[in-house]
Structure formats: structure tokens, C-alpha cells
């Protein structure tokens, strides 16, 4: 606000001075010019009447000539002052209107509104730099899972898009149209706020992301910084100053492809656990082992090519531009959108085709041509723009690599459940059979959507009832928490994936294991279960029932009658 106030004051200086001068001269004129009263006696207007007359004359109210009818000289002066005051007023109001409409003023007002909106967030939030397709998907997913965020985006159009999006978000997400490389924009977005948990730099420009990462790390040591890096050099640079997570968009997909080829069950597990909430459970697809045709040899193509070769699969590359790399042996130089080119590259003996150019329409064209030449073909396409979702869906492609969605998914699991990353790291070292069994258990827990994950931390402020039990020396076993509070003989449909105790991480903990204070448990299962579990950990009665099977009286009178001591937890019982 002070900025806007000073801006208005500065701009209004000249018009206001003009107004004061015009009024002063007019008043002075009326005081000096002699008049005549009703009886013709000479009379001089005093300051009081002069100010009164000029005030209503200047605002064109016009009460007439007061206190006596004017003389010719007075009328002449009135004529002059009417025009002078009207012009001064017009100048004043015109300047004010021009100021209000000026882009600078509007930017100052918007900026002010934005900072106030950010200051009003009283819960942990993340700053998201860049509101492209990725940003949009991420904001939506974060907001749905109850995380506040603030957006800084260069393009005004995209910020307007965010405003439209607000209708479907559970709480307001402030958006600022500014270059994220401008540190002031980051500060306005709440970089130094005690509620700021992290900065996510996902603009398309590596240099901007780098600048955001440096600025964030320098200005607030306590926050986490997540960065998108197109090139590995920038990624290494970011990692060199402790950027918490660097995400290479092209590597995510090639890693997935690699795990889908070698360990399909683990791949499925990874997909489920890192998909945003509400993703429908679909029939898993597994890429075949055989000869592959790879169209496009940019960063995506190179990353995929490397992984396919690492699996010992033969690959024929079709590309027009090899982006500085040496064309691999047997490469065909063309876009690959025509049947004869695909045939020349050996589509007849290929098991699958990967359309990995940076052009959505070309990728679709490659897939459709390939399908016409050979029907039995596993198709993978790279999708650049989320607005093309419908056509990619209609094309019936087996696997679509949508960077925006992949980055958003990866970031979401990092932010929401950092334990998931630990779990996946440990799980990747397990045999394929282990993953397959876990998949079977998870399938039993969910109906239509992929399993969601949540973390339960046994701490006084989160789980008061559990802590009270520990204080009494009662043993709480993991399976107690996983029982249905309505009927303890039934189990809640969920799986305990990981138990974190200090530095130790136990994969698929034994359900008979006794829990300790400060344990963190990662669960996966039906999203509706989470709420019920949280209820249990705050209610001493429910916990008591789950452990002993006894329904203890809650009222003081009944308790006294049965000679039953009050439950040890002093905390409220929230049903």
C-alpha cells in the first residue's frame, strides 16, 4: 500500500498545486474587487464570503450572486474564475483517472494485492515458479491434497488461466505475473515467510530455474528447493549448491521405460505410488522385448536410446536432426512420418515404435502410419502439450510420455510423502516376485483408483492418544492401528509399506511389531481409510477398543458405577 500511496501523491502534486493556486487567486480577486450592496453603498467582500462563493462556483453548483448582486467588475472576474477552476478540476481528475488506468499503477495494485494474499496464508506453502502445463497439473494436485501454493509466472495469460482455475481449487492460490528470475518477485511471493516450505522451479528456461534455486538457497536456508533441469550440466550445477531435488524431465520417462522393461511389477508399483490422487486404476501395459524403432533423437530420444541399449535391445533410430550426436549405426535420416521410411527402418520385424520428436502432430502421425503398416505394434508417444490430451487418448497409444504429468507426479510424491521415495529406493532392490506379491495385496485394498499413500507419525501433537498409551507402558502393535474401529475383527484395507524409526527404515514391517514413540509409518490403501486411522490415534476410547476389544464407558457416572478409572489421555475425544 505505501508504494501505491506515494505513487498517487507524487503524480498529483502538480494538479493539486494548480488547484490551490487557482482557488487562492480567485478568492483574492473577490476580496480585492469592490462591490456595491442593495442600497448602492460600496462594499468589499470579506474572505469568508469570497471562499464561500468560489467554493460553490468552482464546483459549478451556482447559488447565484451572494451576498449582494455583483457589479460588472465582479462579474468579469467571475467569468474568468469559472473557466480557471473548471480547467483546474478537469486537470486534477484527468490526471487521477490516467494514473489509475496506467499499467504501472495497475501493476502496483496487483502486486500489493498479491503480497497481501500471500501474507494471509497461515499454513505451510510452496512457491511454484512457472505455470505451464506442469505447473497447472502440480497446483491442482497439491491443492487437492491440501497443500497451499503460490504461483509466479512470467506470462500474464497464464496467470489469468490460474484465476479461472481458482473456481475448482479448494482454496485461493495467489498468482503473480512476474519473471521468477527477479528476486523481488520471489520475496513478494513469500520466500522469507516462516510458512514457506519450499520453492519449485519448473519454468521451461534452465537459466531461470538456476537463478531461482540460487536465490532461494541464499535467501532462505531452511526451505527445500526442487528444480527442473533440461540439461545435465545445469542439473549438476544446481546439485552443486545443495538444491534438494533436481528433476530431469527426459530421464523420468526413460527410467520408467527401463523399469517397465526389466521389472514390470516394480514399475507398476512405482506408477501407482507416484500417481496423483484419484488416478483410475487401469490395466497395466508392459513394453515387449524386441526390436524398437525410435523416431527423434533429441534429449528424449537419446535418454530412451541409452536405456534400450542398456537392456540389450536392438534399436533403429529415425531422425532428421541428431542434435550434435553421432548418428547410431543403421540410422535412417528422415522424420519417420511416411510408411516407406518406416519400412526401410525395418518395421516388419519391430516389436514397438517410439515417436519421440518434439512435435505432437508428427508423433501422432508416426504412430498412425506405423499402425497401418503393422497392426501388432507396441506404441510409445511423446506428448508435449497437455491441450492435446484428447487426440492422444483417442489414438489408443500404449504408453504416452507426457512430461508435464511426469514432472508433476514426481514432484508431488517428493513433497507429499518423502517416505515414498525411500520406500521405492528400498523396493527397487527387492526381487521382481516381491513386487508382484505386494501388487496383489494392494489390489485387494482399492476399488477404482490407484492406492493413495499417507504417513502416520507417532508424536504428541499428532497422535495424543497413542502417546498416552506409551506413557502408561501399554504395547501398541502395528496391526492394532490397521483394524476397523467399528469392528476390530475386520481389517482396514491398507498395507504398511515402510516403518521409519530414527535412521532405520524397515520395509514391509511385521504387523506384530510393537510401535515406539516417534515412529513414522507409510501406509498405502484406499484414500478413505486415512481419515479413520487419524481418528483412532486421537481417541483413547477407540484405541482401547482396538487393543482390548472392550468398550469402556465414556461418561463419569457409568465409569464410577463400574469402578473404571478414566482413560489416561487428557486430550479430547474426537469421534
Amino acid at each position, binding site marked *: 500500500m505505501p508504494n501505491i500511496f506515494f505513487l498517487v501523491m507524487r*503524480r498529483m*502534486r502538480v494538479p493539486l*498545486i494548480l488547484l*490551490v493556486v487557482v482557488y*487562492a487567486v480567485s478568492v483574492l480577486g473577490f476580496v480585492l474587487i469592490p462591490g456595491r450592496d442593495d442600497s448602492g453603498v460600496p462594499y468589499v467582500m470579506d474572505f469568508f464570503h469570497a471562499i464561500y462563493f468560489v467554493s460553490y462556483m468552482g464546483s459549478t453548483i451556482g447559488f447565484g450572486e451572494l451576498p449582494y448582486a455583483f457589479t460588472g467588475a465582479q462579474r468579469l472576474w467571475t467569468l474568468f474564475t469559472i473557466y480557471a477552476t473548471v480547467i483546474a478540476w478537469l486537470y486534477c481528475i484527468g490526471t487521477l483517472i490516467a494514473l489509475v488506468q496506467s499499467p504501472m499503477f495497475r501493476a502496483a495494485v496487483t502486486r500489493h494485492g498479491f503480497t497481501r494474499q500471500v501474507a494471509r496464508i497461515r499454513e505451510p506453502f510452496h512457491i511454484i515458479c512457472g505455470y505451464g502445463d506442469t505447473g497447472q497439473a502440480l497446483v491442482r494436485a497439491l491443492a487437492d491434497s491440501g497443500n497451499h501454493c503460490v504461483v509466479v509466472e512470467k506470462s500474464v495469460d497464464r496467470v489469468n488461466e490460474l484465476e479461472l482455475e481458482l473456481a475448482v481449487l479448494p482454496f485461493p492460490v495467489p498468482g503473480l505475473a512476474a519473471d521468477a528470475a527477479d528476486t523481488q518477485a520471489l520475496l513478494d511471493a513469500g520466500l522469507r515467510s516462516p510458512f514457506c516450505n519450499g520453492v519449485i522451479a519448473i519454468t521451461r528456461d534452465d537459466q531461470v530455474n538456476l537463478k531461482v534455486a540460487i536465490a532461494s538457497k541464499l535467501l532462505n536456508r531452511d526451505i527445500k528447493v526442487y528444480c527442473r533441469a533440461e540439461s545435465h550440466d545445469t542439473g549438476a550445477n544446481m546439485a552443486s549448491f545443495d538444491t534438494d531435488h533436481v528433476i530431469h524431465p527426459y530421464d523420468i520417462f526413460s527410467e520408467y521405460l527401463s523399469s517397465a522393461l526389466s521389472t514390470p511389477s516394480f514399475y507398476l508399483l512405482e506408477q501407482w505410488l507416484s500417481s496423483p490422487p484419484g488416478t483410475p486404476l487401469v490395466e497395466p501395459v508392459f513394453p515387449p522385448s524386441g526390436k524398437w524403432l525410435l523416431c527423434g533423437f533429441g534429449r528424449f530420444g537419446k535418454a530412451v536410446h541409452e536405456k534400450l541399449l542398456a537392456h540389450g535391445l536392438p534399436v533403429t533410430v529415425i531422425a532428421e536432426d541428431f542434435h550434435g550426436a553421432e548418428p547410431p549405426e543403421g540410422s535412417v535420416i528422415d522424420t519417420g512420418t511416411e510408411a516407406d521410411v518406416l519400412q526401410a527402418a525395418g518395421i516388419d520385424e519391430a516389436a514397438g515404435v517410439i515417436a519421440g520428436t518434439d512435435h505432437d502432430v508428427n508423433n501422432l502421425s508416426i504412430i498412425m502410419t506405423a499402425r497401418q503398416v503393422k497392426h501388432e505394434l507396441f506404441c510409445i508417444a511423446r506428448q508435449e502439450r497437455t491441450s492435446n490430451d484428447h487426440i492422444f487418448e483417442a489414438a489408443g497409444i500404449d504408453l504416452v510420455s507426457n512430461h508435464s504429468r511426469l514432472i508433476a507426479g514426481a514432484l508431488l510424491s517428493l513433497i507429499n510423502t518423502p517416505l515414498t521415495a525411500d520406500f521405492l529406493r528400498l523396493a527397487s532392490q527387492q526381487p521382481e516376485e516381491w513386487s508382484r506379491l505386494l501388487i496383489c495385496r494392494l489390489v485387494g485394498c482399492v476399488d477404482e483408483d490407484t492406492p493413495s499413500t499417507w504417513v502416520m507419525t507417532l508424536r504428541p501433537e499428532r497422535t495424543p492418544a497413542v502417546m498416552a498409551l506409551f506413557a502408561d507402558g501399554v504395547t501398541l502393535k502395528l496391526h492394532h492401528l490397521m483394524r476397523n474401529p467399528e469392528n476390530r475383527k475386520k481389517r482396514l484395507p491398507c498395507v504398511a509399506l515402510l516403518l521409519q524409526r530414527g535412521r532405520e527404515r524397515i520395509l514391509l514391517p511385521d504387523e506384530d511389531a510393537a510401535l515406539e514413540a516417534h515412529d513414522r509409518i507409510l501406509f498405502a490403501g484406499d484414500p478413505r481409510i486415512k481419515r479413520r486411522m487419524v481418528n483412532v490415534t486421537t481417541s483413547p476410547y477407540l484405541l482401547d477398543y482396538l487393543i482390548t476389544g472392550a468398550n469402556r464407558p465414556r461418561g463419569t457416572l457409568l465409569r464410577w458405577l463400574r469402578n473404571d478409572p478414566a482413560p489416561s489421555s487428557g486430550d479430547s475425544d474426537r469421534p
Partner: protein
Amino acid sequence: MHSERVIFAFFILLALTLNFGFFIGDMTNPDHHNVFELFAAVVVSIIATVLKFGDKSHVGTMLLASSLVADLQLIAACIVWGVAVYGLEQPLSDHAMASIVSLSGGALLANVVSVVLLAVETSVHRR
């Protein structure tokens, strides 16, 4: 030479001198206090205030504050005059005249502060 500073210093000083001219004389004697001088003092003081609008520097805000005080005192003096003569419809009493002059005396003090601040700023910002 900085024209903005010259103009501002001119108005601040003029406000002080006009104010002083009005203030000096016998407290209760209306003949010693010219109404035109009061009018000019008010106008010049308001202009000096508007000139300091939007100055974000520390001394600038102090000057704005002191000249706002002067405006307030002078306008109060004018209102007292108007009410005493036209509101009560009586000839100007000694009591009212003393109020008017003492109010303008307060404004005089504020104007002196302005000039001192201006002098301090000028001496600090020597090149």
C-alpha cells in the same frame, strides 16, 4: 542547482515569513494582524505541503509532517476567525483574536522546524 529544491525552499521560507508577519504584534489587537497575510500564509503553506507529497526519503517525510502541522494550525486559526465573526454574528472579541494569533504562533513553530530540517538536509547532502 536543483530546481525542485529551490522551489521547495522558497515556499517553506515564504510560509515562515508570512506566518511570522501575521503573528507579530499585540495578541488581542486585530489591527496588528492582517487577514491578507493569514490568507497568503495558508495558501503558501498548503503549496509547500503538496510539494512534499510522494517524497519517500526520511527527511522528506519529516518535512511533510511538519508542514501538515502548520497547515492544520493555520486552517484552525481561519476557522476560529470565521466562527467568531460569522458563526456567532458578533464583532471579533479579544479572546477570539488571541486564539487566532496563538494558533498561528503554533504554525510558526512548525514552520521553524521545517526550515531547520531543510537546513540540516542541505548541510548533510553537500556535494
